[in-house]
């Protein structure tokens, strides 16, 4: 009996739970992760290996962003990767900081930091390269 009650997950038992914030955040991590594997890997192989930082400059960014598709690609990267990363950071910190008050403070700080940096990145992608 004991072994049966200990391993419902291994038997494929489905449990219905009303989704709360953590539940939605967990799903966000899983679904964004599956998208991020091709998105990030292609981005890294293209920019770091095939092109390389030695061939990058303002002209290169302007050329890349002249294609709308690459701008959309970068918007996807920005929205999926950074939100995945910042929520991951929140989860990691929650493993070490257990006080509910501090967990709330950290959640709000991370939300603020995520929003600020995402907004800066989004404005840059939409605005494009500016020539001085």
């Amino acid at each position, binding site marked *: 009996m004991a072994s049966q009650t200990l391993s419902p997950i291994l038997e494929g038992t489905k449990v219905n739970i009303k989704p709360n914030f953590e539940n939605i955040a967990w799903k966000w991590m899983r679904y964004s992760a599956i998208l991020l594997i091709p998105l990030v890997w292609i981005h890294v192989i293209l920019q770091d290996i095939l092109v390389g*930082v030695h061939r990058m400059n303002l002209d290169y960014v302007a050329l890349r962003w002249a294609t709308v598709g690459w701008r959309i690609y970068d918007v996807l990267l920005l929205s999926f990767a950074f939100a995945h990363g910042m929520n991951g950071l929140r989860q990691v910190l929650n493993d070490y900081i257990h006080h509910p008050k501090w967990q709330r403070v950290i959640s709000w700080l991370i939300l603020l930091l995520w929003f600020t940096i*995402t907004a800066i990145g989004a*404005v*840059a992608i939409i605005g494009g390269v500016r020539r001085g």
Partner: protein
Amino acid sequence: MAYLKTTLKGYTHYKGRTGQFNFLLHRLTGLGTVLFLAIHIMDTATVYFFPMLYEHAIAIYRTTLFGLAEVGLVFCVLFHGTNGLRIAIFDWFPRLWRSEIEHKWNLVTLAITLILWLPLTGLMIRNLLIHNFGLFGG
């Protein structure tokens, strides 16, 4: 603080073999990637806000130190993705969550990461030798 101490002590005292190793590596590679990502969004955003600063940021990325850090970053991204995919597949088929199967696939995850990472590392080091040390006709 007591919680923090207990958790960190657990990492050194708990003998979770490859599962624990991959868990810690997943955490470290994730933290490393998000730290770089935050900086990377800001430096790319200079193309709109302060275009003159972009060339300066790129000049820093071209140094040998950052070139080696880039090799580490690529490892982080490859391991975090491969290991994350392993976890997702195991969750789709929960019967896989048995220690002996986990142990095997933890090792496979590390192997896949290295198989992807080593050739890319070779190409990045080659790039560094060409541009920073004038080798291979650079």
